[in-house]
């Protein structure tokens, strides 16, 4: 990236989410619950040329670090993303997200009659990753297949 673009979006403290799959930047924004009505500077970059991915999206957020659940959700829709923590304008920590083979807790089953949706039971939804691209998950309890759109709808 050229110095000029960087200057526009340089942040002091916060997070840079890099190597987001093309077209997923707005989904990342949604996962993080960002609506632009509060908080610091948010920069969204789409279709940025990238050596690793060809083209990528990026999201830069001033004044915010992500919690593990948010990182897991980003991994679901963009398994090659990198989370950079910025302090005092510098990258102080770099974490590659990781799509686990079992996804637990962060999303719900689409089948209303699945026991994992029961309020009465002590149960955490649990899914197996059937495919990464396109993203497909299979419910541990009822075997239902969740397609990408079923998952995105929940964020």
């Amino acid at each position: 990236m050229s110095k000029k673009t960087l200057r526009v979006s340089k942040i002091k403290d916060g997070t840079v989410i890099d190597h987001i799959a093309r077209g997923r930047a707005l989904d990342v924004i949604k996962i993080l619950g960002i609506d632009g009505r509060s908080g610091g500077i948010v920069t969204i970059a789409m279709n940025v040329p990238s050596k690793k991915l060809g083209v990528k999206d990026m999201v830069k957020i001033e004044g915010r670090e992500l919690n593990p659940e948010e990182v897991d959700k980003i991994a679901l829709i963009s398994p090659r993303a990198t989370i950079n923590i910025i302090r005092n304008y510098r990258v102080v920590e770099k974490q590659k997200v990781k799509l686990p083979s079992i996804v637990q807790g962060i999303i719900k089953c689409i089948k209303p009659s699945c026991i994992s949706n029961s309020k009465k039971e002590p149960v955490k939804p649990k899914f197996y990753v059937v495919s990464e691209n396109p993203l497909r998950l299979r419910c541990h309890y009822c075997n239902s297949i969740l397609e990408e759109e079923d998952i995105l709808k929940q964020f």
Partner: protein
Amino acid sequence: MKRRYDFTNRDIVSIRGFTREEIDYILEVSHSMEPLAERGSDMLRGKVLAELFFEPSTRTMLSFQTAMYKLGGNVIGFAEPGVSSVWKGESLADTVRVVENYSDVIVLRHPLEGAARLAAEYAKVPVINAGSGAEEHPTQALLDLYTILKHKGRIDGLSIILMGDLRYGRTVHSLAYALSLYDVDLHLVSPDLLKMRREVIEDIKDRIKVTEHTDLMEILPDADVLYVTRIQKERFPDLGEYEKVRGSYVIDLNVLKKAKDDLIVLHPLPRVDEIAVEVDSTSFAKYFEQTKNGVVVRMALLALVLGAIK
């Protein structure tokens, strides 16, 4: 027996939990139960089976009871939680952790999908799924396989038709999956509205040849097994639509003229009118015998999970 498997304490939750070799073994053990079903046995003396039926299913309940009694064991339980409000309000996870202290094995029927899996995660004693939600009914699939094997001497190489309500039918999904572990030609016959769900077909089509039809006559002449399920009126948006298709999915003597002499006709029961009564007395009809086979298969499963056969 070629190979033995130790099923002691194993849960029977889903047909997906088994390899073909394990299923073959269960079917062999089932066969060895035939004489014990005739004369009785004390193989499971002192053992207690708890039947937790949160949804009515008299046939399945009686079948498990008979299986347990034939092996000398005892049965406790309830049918429908309404009988006792305690069970109704309590979580399933709690119920099984109480009931496991009264029993050596739990048989569960529940309206929610995945209920048996959850119960198995909480219970220390083995849990057998007697139907949960609309999908899984593994013991029915096993008894269907057993019936086919008993009459055909093999499952591999057969041409098998599943007909009727393939979309909502509880038993056909487990059965289709089980059959896909064998080398069969599977033909699915149903009205368009009640076709097998895509996800079920996706799951099996890499292992076996699957074809879909709306007209039974296209494939009946070559079939070895015809598995019929009921088409319910309620599944159709309007009655006219239902009236249009219902006649095409009824089996009677006229239809069977086109079939091979040694075709067998199966049905999970209860039947309404999808198999004409005139078929009952023919050699095609094996649907009542299926219920008898259900007892020996359940005897085998109980003996296996309770460690009486290793």
